[in-house]
């Protein structure tokens, strides 16, 4: 079994009031990163990170096609995201919209760029929101999931103390 070497951590910057830029390098050619990014059974294995389990990954990979991911966090808190593909250049670029279903008004446009150098891939995800309010809420949403889990656990503890 080959040792998995972490290629570094994600770097998040805020290039403007309405944008989020996420950058990460992977120790793999870009066609594999692209494949892992766009194949439902593979998406299910990484997309939730350590926050829970991906229960649905629908990918209709064509311009105008829809995607939808659903994750169940520990404690049963369910979060859904969906969007529409706007531009697809296989192994190079995906532009799609993204809506966090907990905040359906805040539609973002995400530009994913896969760049390969010497067999390694740099992925950038530029998230373009329509307002700073939505951008900020997006950054907060990850914390809300975490807080929800904490509340759920607190509730379990509280119930067990009755």
């Amino acid at each position, binding site marked *: 079994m*080959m040792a*998995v*070497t*972490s*290629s570094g*951590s*994600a*770097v*998040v910057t*805020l290039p403007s*009031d309405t944008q*989020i830029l*996420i950058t*990460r390098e*992977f*120790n*793999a050619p870009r*066609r*594999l*990163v692209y*494949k*892992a990014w766009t194949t439902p059974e*593979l998406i299910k*294995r*990484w*997309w*939730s*990170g*350590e*926050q829970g389990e991906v229960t649905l990954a629908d990918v209709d990979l064509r311009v105008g096609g829809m995607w939808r991911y659903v994750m169940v966090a520990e404690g049963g808190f369910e979060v859904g995201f969906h969007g529409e593909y706007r531009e697809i250049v296989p192994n190079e670029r995906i532009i799609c919209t993204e809506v966090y279903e907990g905040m359906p008004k805040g539609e973002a446009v995400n530009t994913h760029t896969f760049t390969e150098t010497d067999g390694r891939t740099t992925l950038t995800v530029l998230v373009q929101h329509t307002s*700073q309010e939505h951008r*900020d809420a997006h*950054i*907060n949403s*990850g*914390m*809300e*999931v*975490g*807080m929800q889990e904490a509340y759920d656990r607190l509730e379990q503890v509280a119930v067990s103390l009755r």
Partner: protein
Amino acid sequence: MARAATTTDAFNAVAEPRRRQILDVLAGGERPVNDLVMLLGLAQPLVSKHLRVLREVGLVEVRDDGRQRMYRLNGHALKPIHDWVKNYERSWSQRFDQLDVVLEELKEMEDGNDGSDE
């Protein structure tokens, strides 16, 4: 996470592009207000107004140096913003760490069958 709705937190203070410019300049060291006026090309009352907002949230500190008022950056006040983004960054890092595992498996599979599945 709840944030103040008024202009009295660091988040709102840095939402204004000119105020971020001021912080960028002060990141290079302490400056009198005249320098800021010159470097930013803004009217002094406007610069003073922005500085007042930054002072109210603790992002800049001021001291009198003879007849000049010297402004400097207080990096600690930026910590809430740093923490806020870090939390988001952490969830992406965890996600990408899992993706690394998937990618290693895809590479092994390709090595095993010479990529004949593509």
